[in-house]
């Protein structure tokens, strides 16, 4: 059994505006300190939570899915080697590189950077940023779930209409 999944499933993943604003502050600070191009925060299901910096023409949805898949495969390898998790992953390109840093137990921070900075700088400040983000997530998880805004009461009805409109066979 994967106990943390049970826990997270019960909690559901809801990000409120004020949470994301706090996360963005951390990401922007990290962006400046590390001199990276952009930072993308992704949950383990492969959904993007938020981003900072110049993402330009990057297909964020696809990158998020691949990052999550990559991390999942790494985690499984770690488990088989007797490690809890490999907390950092690094892919080096000719021009741009990407570092993936685990944040808490359910999000991944993807940092894209180029020759303007170094892997050492990115790694150093990513650790700091990761700790700050973990603090924010801890506060989110400890908050009672009923607080904050919720989906509109017409969501169900609207969803049916959207599905009928979209799926015209």
């Amino acid at each position, binding site marked *: *059994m*994967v106990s943390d*999944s049970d826990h*997270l*499933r*019960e909690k*559901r*993943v*809801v*990000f*409120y*505006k004020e*949470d*994301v*604003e706090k996360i963005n502050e951390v990401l922007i600070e990290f962006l400046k300190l590390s001199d990276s191009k952009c930072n993308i925060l992704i*949950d*383990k*299901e*492969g*959904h*993007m*939570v*938020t981003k900072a910096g110049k993402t330009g*023409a*990057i*297909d964020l*949805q*696809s*990158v998020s*899915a*691949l*990052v999550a*898949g*990559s991390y*999942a*495969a*790494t985690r*499984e*390898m770690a488990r088989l*080697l007797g490690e809890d998790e490999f907390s950092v992953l690094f*892919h080096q*390109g*000719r*021009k*741009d590189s*990407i570092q993936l840093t685990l944040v808490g137990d359910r999000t991944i921070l993807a940092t894209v950077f180029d020759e303007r900075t170094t892997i050492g700088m990115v790694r150093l400040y990513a650790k700091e940023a990761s700790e700050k983000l973990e603090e924010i997530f801890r506060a989110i998880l400890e908050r009672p779930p009923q607080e904050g805004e919720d*989906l*509109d*009461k*017409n*969501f*169900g009805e*609207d*969803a*049916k209409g*959207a*599905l009928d409109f*979209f*799926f015209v*066979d």
Partner: protein
Amino acid sequence: MVQINFSLKEVNCKVVYYGPGLSGKTTNLEVVHQKAPKGSVGDLTSIATEGDRTLFFDFLPLNLGQVAGMKTKFQIYTVPGQVYYNSTRKLVLQGADGVVFVADSKKGKMPENLESLENLMENFREYGMDPETTPIVLQYNKRDLPEIYTIEEMDAELNRWNCLTFEAVARDGNGVFPTLKALAGQVLESLNRQHSGGSVAQRRPAAVAVGAGVAAGGGGGQQSAQASPAVSVGQATGRAQPMRATGQAVPMQGGVRVSAKNQSISVAKNKKKNRSKGMLWVMLGFVALAGAGAYLHFSGKLAALLGQ
């Protein structure tokens, strides 16, 4: 797991196509990619082998559009169907909000369908997912082939949870949209229930007990493919009956059938529990091999997306 992001005003759902190898999962995604309204789907990303068999997953982002002020998106994945790739298949299933099980209707393929379904259940159990409450839709694919199982046979063997079923010829695009529409509807309805103060999970009507087949005839057993799928779980009547999207009303043959295949899987599970260190190293080697392959693909895909 559905992500609700009030900052981006987005709802993100994960849907997984499951099923045996070569049953048509990737073809389903290709059809959705081709038929969906322009601008509503992103690129279809495949992490596949040289021979175009899925190695890790295929991925298609789909934007349903605005739903009550929220951009509603689906991330659609397929798993590799081959038995060999269970470790990666399991990873893709994690956090899924709904599953389409694509079964091969061709005669002789039932053992593979059953093996894949058992594998799905095993992976469900590992993640603490309940097939009674998780949105699942069955697609009986390749209905155009000359030698196929009847719908009754498919239902009897595979439809254990009163799921909606759809006949399809994915290669020609038939049945692909109704299947996905039904599942997407169930996922959104489930989300709506959770956020409208209702119970988090709602069970399907009780499955038909083995040997207590109930004729779904009398006009009550058919469910049109056009019927709103979003209400299928919540508003299904208490009558135990197969929920069919197309085809004729047929008697339900029963619930779970224990087959020789199931037993062999149980044995495999026991072996797994008692695996020796040697077995672990064999697995490690296997996963490292698969992982290395996946990494090469990942690096390539990520580099391509980053414009390298």
